[in-house]
């Protein structure tokens, strides 16, 4: 086994362990740290998929922006040492496990059954091609996404300004 495969397996382990930590940990801040680990693992997988620009964007947007936002929300929503544990009852856990196991079985049977017709040509896409397509074929969705983000930011600010709390 060469070095690339070893690092790939390490990335897989980081991703899966982070996802399990996110879902199963008792404290919400540990769940956030698990989310960060998952994001880094997925960025590593993007590097293996020949998409280094996406890996960089993943780290910038998810780890840099969304996670910090969630951390601020956690800190604003009360002191977390007096918060109860995250786990709900055992019945809910069994129900959630059954739902995820059923979906896992269903989708994995689909994945194993279908032949995806893969490996037709060599993959040689650069970041330049992404930029070209963003301003050529996908110019309208690109502008629409920026519009959605502006509207959501303004909406968040309006919610923060014009709301009356308990006090």
């Amino acid at each position, binding site marked *: 086994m060469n070095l690339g*495969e070893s690092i790939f397996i390490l990335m897989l382990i980081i991703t899966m362990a982070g996802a399990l930590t996110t*879902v199963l940990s008792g404290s919400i801040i540990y769940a956030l740290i698990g989310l960060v680990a998952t994001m880094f693992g997925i960025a590593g*997988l993007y590097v293996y998929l020949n*998409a280094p620009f*996406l890996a960089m964007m993943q780290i910038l947007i998810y780890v840099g922006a969304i996670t910090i936002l969630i951390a601020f929300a956690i800190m604003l*929503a009360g002191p977390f040492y007096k918060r109860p544990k995250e786990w709900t009852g055992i019945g809910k856990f069994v129900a959630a496990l059954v739902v995820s196991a059923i979906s896992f079985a269903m989708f994995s049977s689909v*994945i194993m059954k279908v032949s995806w017709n893969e490996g037709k040509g060599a993959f040689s896409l650069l970041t330049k091609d992404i930029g070209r397509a*963003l301003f050529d074929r996908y110019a309208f969705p690109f502008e629409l996404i920026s519009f959605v983000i502006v509207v959501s930011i303004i909406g968040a600010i309006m919610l923060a300004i014009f709301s009356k709390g308990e006090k």
Partner: protein
Amino acid sequence: MTGAFLSGNLNVYLFVGLFLLCCGILGVIYRRTLIAMLISIELIMNGAGLNFVAFNRFVSPEGPDGMIFTLFIMGLAAAEAAIALAIIILIFRKYRSIESTEMEEMKD
């Protein structure tokens, strides 16, 4: 890369995406607070993005369509997180709690 028998396989990436989806579903049902549910939804979105990039790499390597869809998913996730966290902070101000079982005023 010649010895890429695990990282050159499409099914590995698909199973990782599926694992993230199942973890997200489990988290949305099982966790107590709203912020943890939001974190689980982020997991689901990441699984979808990983699937898009893997299909772009292995099935249709002619254009960067899957990568662009993943970028759109990231932008939408950012917008969704901003709005959802603003609403969660408002709920905390009003109810002094962010647990999902407390929000039952509209049930009656």
